[in-house]
């Protein structure tokens, strides 16, 4: 939407209202992480700023477009709106985005079939002229998360939107993640130069290998190659689809002694959040005892060479295929990531290869479920899969069920299963949020449009036989067996039969090398059950206190001594300095405010209205009285005259007759 007044500051204050469902609260926080990774938009709990977004459980999913500058701006995440892309969609509205097909140039790209639209709903297909809506010089985007699907507002079974390029008919209406163009527009609209949590991405297609350096203290170097006789035949980024490109880094362990090493270090990186997730693909074509060690070289003050810390030893690397790995890190100072290949005992014709490295200041998934030979499972009766068993950080054992046998949609369900810790755990399982992500294996994390759904275990949920749904599986579950024959108990599944369509599943890089990855995180969100802490008012980002240039603007909460030190404001007022003098910034809300030198008085729109009405009434009454009196006096005066004239007239008449 055109208009600077509609913009938010890069960090948007928000409140998660108590009315929100627990799962929705967790998903909203996950959506914020996607903004932080791919844009320069950040979110923070409201601390008294004038304008903020209040996310609540209203009826349905909706938002205003742009910053209304109305103080509390509502955004509704109602029942069934707790999907991450839906929340991203609604926040894009709040940030100033219309729907993609309302662009002024949409008729060049889609046909609207007006007679298939429900009667009375035609206005939902308006376009905005380019005085109200700006395309930011980005081409029309069929893949936008802001695009209607082909079935929007249809009165029958035929699509209301037909794309002029037929291949996009089943692409429009995606609700997975931001598209590249969504991000381009958002980053242009807000002049983004960097994101909060992205650090680096490297697919080794450029000769500079992303600024990575070879170490001198090792036995061999990593080489940038496009294939290795003993494997891999091609890189992971392009999987051999592009002649002349498709490079990766290779440590040839066949040419060195056992225990020999090859070290590759990243460029220096500067963390902001203090926690990181490293994601990369690894291929082993040497000995199965080959090992990859991940270190951090951390540079602190006065330590020019940095301190090397071992973070993870990766052993037992499967032979003959690209494998996805995640490594969690916690670094607060400038650092390098160090990859050390070590030749293991045993025959080795090839070596270790690395590709598609991504580093971001995000949380790694807790578990990876890799599904091989995936394509043949889609739409097949064999397409019903259970994952291996996993444990959540709290100790709950769980399993994922993926149903690909349905002709159109893939379903995914979360099951609690009996586990070793059950006797020590709380039952029914309280407020554990399971997030299941189908990974888009795009080499660059910023372009991954992974498909994600989350569910949360509600300990009060019961089934119609009176059991608690999330009670311990050994009590409410059914007997099941692992492939090795071990028996266990599996609780009921909880998820969706509409996780993703097979059509979309074949799109993008969900399937790569016939492998699919489901990333799993189960986190305790019981802390979200409490009310978001109420703000301690601070000077507002949007207000501009004209302090003396160069002078710090102390507030009543700051430690800076100054005019505010002994100047107390009442009713949560905030002391601020203007022109060297202390004065109070009084809190205000939608229809109330405090005023007075120390915010000692309270005003409200209701009072104002009452005052206005009563003063109007008083003035009206006064005017009426004045009018009546003047009419009365005038009449009295003319009556006198009239009587005196009559007397005169009778004298004349006598004379005349």
């Amino acid at each position, binding site marked *: 939407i055109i208009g600077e007044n509609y913009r938010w500051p890069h960090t948007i204050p928000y409140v998660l209202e108590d009315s929100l469902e627990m799962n929705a609260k967790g998903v909203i926080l996950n959506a914020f992480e996607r903004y932080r990774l791919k844009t320069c938009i950040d979110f923070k709990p409201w601390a008294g700023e004038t304008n903020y977004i209040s996310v609540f459980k209203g009826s*349905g999913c909706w*938002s205003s*477009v742009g910053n*209304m500058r109305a103080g509390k701006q509502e955004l509704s995440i109602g029942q069934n*709106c707790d999907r991450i892309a839906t929340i991203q969609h609604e926040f894009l509205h709040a940030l100033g985005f219309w729907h993609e097909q309302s662009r002024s140039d949409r008729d060049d790209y889609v046909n609207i079939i007006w007679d298939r639209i429900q009667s009375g709903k035609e206005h939902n297909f308006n376009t905005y*002229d380019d005085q109200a809506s700006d395309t930011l010089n980005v081409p029309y985007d069929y893949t936008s998360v802001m695009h209607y699907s082909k079935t929007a*507002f249809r009165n029958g079974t035929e699509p209301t939107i037909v794309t002029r390029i037929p291949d996009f008919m089943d692409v429009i209406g995606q609700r997975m993640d931001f598209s590249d163009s969504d991000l381009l527009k958002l980053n242009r609209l807000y002049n983004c130069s960097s994101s909060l949590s992205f650090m680096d991405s490297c697919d080794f297609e450029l000769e500079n290998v992303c600024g990575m350096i070879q170490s001198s203290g090792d036995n061999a170097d990593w080489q940038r190659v496009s294939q290795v006789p003993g494997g891999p035949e091609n890189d992971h980024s392009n999987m051999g689809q592009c002649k002349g490109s498709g490079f990766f880094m290779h440590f040839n362990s066949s040419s060195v002694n056992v225990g020999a090493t090859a070290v590759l270090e990243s460029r220096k990186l500067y963390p902001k959040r203090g926690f990181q997730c490293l994601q990369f693909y690894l291929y082993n074509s040497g000995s199965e005892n080959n090992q990859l060690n991940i270190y951090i070289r951390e540079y602190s003050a006065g330590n020019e060479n940095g301190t090397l810390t071992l973070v993870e030893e990766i052993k037992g690397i499967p032979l003959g295929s690209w494998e996805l790995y995640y490594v969690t890190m916690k670094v607060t100072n400038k650092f390098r990531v160090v990859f050390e290949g070590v030749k293991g005992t045993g025959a080795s014709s090839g070596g270790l290869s690395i590709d598609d490295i991504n580093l971001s200041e995000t949380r790694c998934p807790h578990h990876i479920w890799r599904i091989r030979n995936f394509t043949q499972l889609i739409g097949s009766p064999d397409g019903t899969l259970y994952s291996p068993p996993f444990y959540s950080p709290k100790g709950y054992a769980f399993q994922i069920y993926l149903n690909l046998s349905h002709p159109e949609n893939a379903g995914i369900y979360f099951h609690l299963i009996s586990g070793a810790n059950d006797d020590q755990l709380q039952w029914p399982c309280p407020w554990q949020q399971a997030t299941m992500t189908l990974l888009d294996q795009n080499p660059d994390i910023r372009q991954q449009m992974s498909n994600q759904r989350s569910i949360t275990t509600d300990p009060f*949920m019961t089934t119609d036989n009176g059991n608690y749904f999330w009670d311990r599986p050994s009590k409410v579950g059914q007997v099941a067996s692992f492939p090795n024959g071990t028996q266990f108990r599996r609780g009921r599944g909880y998820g969706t039969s509409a996780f993703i*369509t097979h059509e979309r599943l074949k799109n993008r890089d969900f399937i790569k090398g016939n492998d699919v990855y489901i990333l799993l995180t189960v986190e305790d969100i019981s802390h979200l059950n409490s009310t978001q802490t109420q703000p301690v008012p601070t000077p507002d980002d949007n207000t501009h206190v004209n302090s003396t240039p160069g002078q710090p603007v102390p507030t009543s909460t700051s430690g800076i001594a100054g005019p505010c030190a002994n100047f107390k404001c009442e009713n949560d007022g905030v002391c601020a300095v203007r022109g060297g003098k202390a004065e109070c910034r009084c809190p205000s809300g939608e229809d109330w405010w405090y005023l007075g030198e120390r915010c000692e008085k309270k005003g409200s729109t209701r009072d104002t209205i009452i005052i206005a009405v009563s003063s109007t009434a008083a003035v009206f009454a006064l005017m009426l009285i004045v009018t009546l009196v003047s009419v009365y006096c005038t009449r009295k005066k003319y009556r006198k005259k009239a009587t005196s004239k009559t007397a005169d007239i009778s004298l004349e008449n006598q004379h005349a007759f």
Partner: protein
Amino acid sequence: LPTPENFDVDGGIDQDIFDINEDLGLDLFEGDIKLNGVQGRNS
């Protein structure tokens, strides 16, 4: 909750934002936009 083997939070249908809002009888602009006066006149 019914006692199927798996409980489907979406009730077996893949609803988009607009379907959810329409089923609730909401008549929001373009299905999920809460307009202020000025913006409505622009379209």
